[in-house]
C-alpha cells in the first residue's frame, strides 16, 4: 500500500481531517469518512453527475477527483445548501415543480443547477439544458427539472 497522507477539507463550512490513501476518491471521502451520504455514487465514470459537488465554487464530479487533490480546499455538498430548516430556493422549486421522482440524481442535479444560476442568474431554457448536460435523470424526462430551475432562478433574483 502506498503511503497515506493526512488531508484537511472544509466541507459545508466544517473542517474535516483524515488519514487517507492517495487513491481514495473524493466521493468516497465525503460519503464513507465524513458520512455525508447526500452525495450519490452513480456511474463512477464521470458521466452521470450523481456525485456532483462544488469544489472551491465550481461544480465537479467527485468520482473523478482524488480526495488528496481537494486537500486544503472547500467543498459544498447538498447538505450544505439549506439554511437550517429553510430550504434553498432550488430545493423548494424541485419539490414544487416535481423536478424529481426517485431522487437519485437530485443532489447532483441541484448542485449543477446551483452552479448555472451563479453564472447565469437569468438563463434561457437552452442555457439550462446546456448547464445540466452533465447530469442524467432516468425518471423525469427533464422538463420538470428545467421548470424547477427556471422557478428557482426567479426566486433567487427576487431575494437579492
Amino acid at each position, binding site marked *: *500500500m*502506498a*503511503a497515506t*497522507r493526512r488531508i484537511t477539507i472544509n466541507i459545508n463550512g466544517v473542517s474535516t481531517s483524515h488519514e487517507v*490513501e*492517495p*487513491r*481514495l*476518491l473524493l466521493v*468516497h471521502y465525503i460519503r464513507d469518512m465524513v458520512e455525508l451520504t447526500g452525495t450519490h455514487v452513480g456511474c*463512477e*465514470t*464521470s*458521466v452521470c*453527475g450523481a456525485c*456532483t459537488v462544488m469544489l472551491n465554487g*465550481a*461544480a*465537479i*464530479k467527485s468520482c*473523478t*477527483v*482524488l480526495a*488528496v*487533490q481537494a486537500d486544503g480546499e472547500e467543498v459544498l455538498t447538498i447538505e450544505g445548501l439549506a439554511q437550517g430548516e429553510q430550504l434553498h430556493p432550488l430545493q423548494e422549486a424541485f419539490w414544487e415543480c416535481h423536478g424529481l421522482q426517485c431522487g437519485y440524481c437530485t443532489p447532483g442535479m441541484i448542485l*449543477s443547477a446551483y*452552479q*448555472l444560476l451563479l453564472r447565469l442568474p437569468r438563463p434561457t431554457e437552452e442555457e439550462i439544458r*446546456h*448547464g*445540466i*448536460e*452533465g*447530469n442524467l435523470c432516468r425518471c423525469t424526462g427533464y422538463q420538470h427539472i428545467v421548470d424547477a430551475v427556471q422557478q428557482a432562478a426567479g426566486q433567487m433574483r427576487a431575494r437579492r
Partner: protein
Amino acid sequence: MIPASFDYLTPTTLGEAVEALVSHGENARVIAGGHSLLPMMKLRLARPGVLVDLSKIPDLSGIQQENGQITIGALTTHYEIESSDLLKDKCPLLPQTARVIGDAQVRNRGTIGGSLAHADPAADIPASILALGGELRVRGPDSDRWIQAEDFFLGLMTTALKPDEILTKIRIPVLSDRVGTSYQKVAQKASGFAIVGVAVHLGMDGGLCAEIGVGVTGLGSKPYRARGVEEGLRNRRLEPSVIEAASSQVAQDVDPLEDIHASAEFRAHLARLYTARAIVEAAKMAER
C-alpha cells in the same frame, strides 16, 4: 471503481516536478485536472506507481496577451477558456471549441494542457490548436523548448513529450479582425467525444481566402492539420463548388478509425460534410 495504489507527489516548482519524473521514469505520470488520466487508472488502462500533481506549482494557469501572441497556461481549465473575454475577442475558435467539451463539470476540471498531452484521438482542443498553428512549450531536465502543434501529435495517445518532460503552456497568434472561425463536431452521444470534429480559422481579403487553417480530430489515430483542404481554399473565392472540392480532400492519406459508433466510410463522409460546414460558418463570421 478505484484506481490501483500509487504514491502522490505535490511539487511546488517545475524543477521539482521534472526531477520527480526523472527519478521515477516511466512509472510516474503527471496529473493536472485528472479527467483523462483518472478514468484510465480506474479501468487499469493506466497504472502509474507515482502521480506528480502540478496543481501546487504557481503560474501554470491563466490567459495572457503579449506581443501579438496569446499564451495559455497548461493548467487553464476548459471553462476558463470558454468564458475568457480576451479569447472571445482575439481567438474565438478556442471558446467555441471549449464550450462543447464534455459537460459543465468536466469543463470546470479538465485542462487544455491535459487534453493536449493525453492526445486522445477524439479530443476537441487539439483540432483547434492545430488549425491556429499553435506552439507548445515543453520543459524537461535539459530542455525548455517550443514544439509546433503539427509536430506534437505522433499517433494514438502518443506525443513528442518525453517521459520526463512537462507541457507548461500553449502559444497562439492573435488573429486579425477579418478572421472567422468555427468548430463543428458530431459528438458521441454518451461521452461527448468527437466522432469527427473540424476546426477552421480563415481570413478573407478582397473576397479571397487569404489565410486558412483546418484541424481535424476523431477521424484518424491522431489529430492532424488538413493541408489538402487548406490548399483547395487558399486565394480562392469561397463559392460552394470550391468549398465542396476542398472538403473532399479532408480524409486524404488518413486511415479512418472504425468502431461501434461509426464505420470508417461513414467517418470519412462525416469529415467531408463537417469540414464544409465549418468553412461555411467561419466564412460567414469573417464577412461580418
